[in-house]
C-alpha cells in the first residue's frame, strides 16, 4: 500500500532531474505516428546528406536507348524520357525539396509570426498598418506573386525559396495574429502584467507559447504547400533549373508521360507524399506533447492518477488545517 504510493513519487523526482526536452523527446518517441514520421524524416535527411554515395547512377546520365523503361532490377524506379535513372534522381532530389521546404517555410514562419504577433498584441495602428501590408500580399494569387518576386530577383533555387517564403508570410501573420488576439486577453497575461512583467516577457513567456499550437499546425501544412509550390515554379522554369533533379520538377515532367510511363510521376509523387505526411504527423505529435494537459494524460499510467488523487486530498487537508 505505502510502497505503491511511494513508487510514483520517486518516479516524479526522477523526471524533475531529467531535462524537459529529453522528457519531450521520450514522449514523442512513444507516440507511434510521430515516431514513424520522425523516422521517415530522418531517412530523408540522411538520403539528402549522402545522396552521392546512395545513387546508383548519375542524375543526368542520359541513355536514350533505355528511355521510358519500367521498374526493373537495373532501374528499380524505371527510367524517364531521356533514359535517366528515376531512383537516382529521386534520391538526389531529396536535398532540393527538403531545403526548399524548410527554408521557404522558415522565412514565412519567422517573418509572418513576428508581424502577426506584434499586430495582435499591440493592436490599434500597429495592427492596421501591418495587417494591411499583409493583405496586399495576400490579395495576389500565390503563384503570381511568387513569379513576380522571381521576375525581380531572377530565377534560381535560392530566389525560389525566398519567393515562396514571401508568398506564405501573410498566412502565418493571420494565423498568429488570431491566436495572439485570443491569448492576449487571458487573465494569466493580465496577472503577469500586474506583477510588473515587461511586454517582451509577456510575449515570449506567456503569449507565444500559448498561441503556438495553430502556428505549429500551419507550419506543417505549409511545408507541404512549399514543396508543391517549388514544383510549380520549377515547372514554369523559374525554380530549380533543369537538368538538376527536384521532386516537383520530375512530377511536372512526368505528367506528360502518365499513360506511357506511370513510374516517372508516381515515384517522385510518392516521395513528396511521404515527406509532407511525415511533416504533418510530426507537427501533430509535437503539438500534443507540448501541451501540458495532453502531456500528463500521456505520462499518466493508472498508478499515477491514483496517486494524484491522494496528493490532492493531502494538499486539501493541509489547506483546511
Amino acid at each position, binding site marked *: 500500500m505505502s510502497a505503491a504510493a511511494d513508487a510514483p513519487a520517486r518516479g516524479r523526482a526522477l523526471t524533475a532531474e531529467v531535462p524537459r526536452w529529453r522528457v519531450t523527446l521520450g514522449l514523442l518517441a512513444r507516440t507511434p505516428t510521430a515516431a514513424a514520421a520522425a523516422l521517415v524524416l530522418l531517412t530523408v535527411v540522411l538520403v539528402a546528406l549522402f545522396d552521392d554515395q546512395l545513387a546508383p547512377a548519375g542524375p543526368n546520365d542520359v541513355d536514350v536507348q533505355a528511355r521510358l523503361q519500367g521498374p526493373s532490377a537495373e532501374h528499380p524506379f524505371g527510367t524517364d524520357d531521356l533514359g535517366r535513372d528515376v531512383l537516382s534522381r529521386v534520391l538526389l532530389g531529396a536535398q532540393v525539396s527538403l531545403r526548399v521546404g524548410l527554408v521557404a517555410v522558415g522565412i514565412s514562419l519567422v517573418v509572418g509570426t513576428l508581424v502577426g504577433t506584434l499586430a495582435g498584441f499591440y493592436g490599434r495602428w500597429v495592427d492596421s498598418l501591418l495587417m494591411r501590408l499583409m493583405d496586399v500580399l495576400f490579395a495576389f494569387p500565390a503563384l503570381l506573386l511568387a513569379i513576380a518576386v522571381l521576375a525581380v530577383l531572377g530565377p534560381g533555387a535560392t530566389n525560389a525559396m525566398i519567393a515562396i517564403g514571401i508568398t506564405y508570410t501573410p498566412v502565418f501573420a493571420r494565423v498568429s495574429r488570431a491566436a495572439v488576439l485570443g491569448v492576449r486577453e487571458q487573465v494569466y497575461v493580465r*496577472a503577469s502584467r500586474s*506583477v510588473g512583467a515587461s511586454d517582451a516577457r509577456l510575449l515570449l513567456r506567456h503569449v507565444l507559447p500559448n498561441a503556438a499550437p495553430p502556428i505549429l499546425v500551419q507550419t506543417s501544412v505549409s511545408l507541404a504547400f512549399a514543396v508543391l509550390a517549388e514544383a510549380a515554379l520549377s515547372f514554369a522554369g523559374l525554380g530549380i533549373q533543369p537538368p538538376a533533379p527536384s521532386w516537383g520538377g520530375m512530377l511536372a515532367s512526368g505528367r506528360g508521360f502518365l499513360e506511357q510511363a506511370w513510374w516517372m510521376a508516381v515515384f517522385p509523387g510518392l516521395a513528396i507524399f511521404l515527406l509532407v505526411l511525415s511533416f504533418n504527423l510530426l507537427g501533430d505529435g509535437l503539438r500534443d506533447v507540448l501541451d501540458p494537459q495532453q502531456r500528463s494524460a500521456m505520462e499518466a499510467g493508472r498508478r499515477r492518477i491514483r496517486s494524484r488523487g491522494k496528493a490532492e486530498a493531502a494538499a486539501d487537508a493541509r489547506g483546511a488545517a
Partner: protein
Amino acid sequence: MTIENGGGDVLVSARGLKVHFPVRSKGLRRRQVGAVRAVDGVDLDIRRGETLGLVGESGCGKSTLGNALLRLVEPTAGTVTFDGTDVTALDRRGLRSLRRRAVMVFQDPYASLDPRIPVGRTVAEPLEVHGLHPGAQARAARVAELLELVGLDPGVAGRYPHEFSGGQRQRIGIARALAGEPDFVVCDEAIASLDVSVQAQVLNLLRRLQRQLGLTYLFVSHDLAAVRHVSDRIAVMYLGSVVEVGTAAQVAGRPRHPYTRALLSAVPVPSPGAERGRERIVLRGDVPSAAAVPSGCRFRTRCPDVFEPCPVVAPALADRGDGQLAACHLHGVVGERVPADVAEAGRLP
C-alpha cells in the same frame, strides 16, 4: 471637497478618480460619441493594515476601481496616491516598483494561471521580474517557502495548473501575489468562483496572511456576507461612484444610504423566523447604463425615498455622524448643484 475618513495612517487614497471608456461611432471616422463612466469621481482612503470591503452589484465599477488603483487601467482623471507617491504620475521604473508593492488576486483561478508553465515558475515570476532572491537555488527556496505559506506542499512546484483544484489554484495565485512582499493586495472577487466550502478556507488564509505579513486589503466582492465577515470598513458602490463608507458594523448595522439598505435586505438570513419578519426592499427598475448616468443623485431613478433636491443637486459623500459617510440628501442636502441644462436633460452628457 475634502474627505476625512477619520484618522489612521492612509496607504492608498483616490481623489476624484474617473475611468471613462470612450464609446465610438461605427464606420471609418470612429468619432467619440459618448463615454461609459465605469468609475466616476471616486474619493476613497484605504488605511494601512485594514481590510476595506468594496461591494456593489455587477457592472457598478468596483473591479475597474480596483484596477485603476493599481494603474492596471489608466484613470481618465483624478489622482491615486500610494504610500505618499502619486501613482498616476509614475514613470516606467516607478510603475515597476509599484507592481512589486501593490498586487492583485484575480477572480477566476482557472484562468489566472498560465496553463503551459509549471506553477513554481508562475510563483517565481515576480521574483524574476524584480530581480529578487537571485540565483536558481535561492529562488526555488523562496518558491517553496511561498507555497508553504499558502498551505500547499512545496513539492508541487513542478506541476501544471490543470493538476490542481480550484481552491489550490487560488492559493497559487495568492502565492504569486505575495512573492514580491507587497504592502497592498486587491482581491478582485477572489472567492467568487470557488465552492462555498473552499471560500471559507481561502478567506481564512487571507486573514491569516494579513496578520502574519501586515497586509492591507481591498476586498472587492458582490457577496455582502463575505465582505462583512472579513472587512474592517466597507465601501458601497453604485453606478461608478461610492455612495457609502463606514466601519463594517456601521454599514451593516445602521446603513445611511437607501441603496445600502436595499443591498442588505437582499442578503439571505439563515433563520426562517427572522427571514419572515424582515423588511425587504425591492428596488424598482434596472441599473441605468453607465453611458447615460442620471443627473444629480445617480440612485434617484430607483430610490424609494426620492425627493426634490435629488435630480438637481449631486449629493456629496459627507460625514453623517461617527465618521460614517453617505452620499444621500435624506441626511441633509449637501453637494454641488447640477447645471441647469444637465438637470433639464435629466442625465449627464
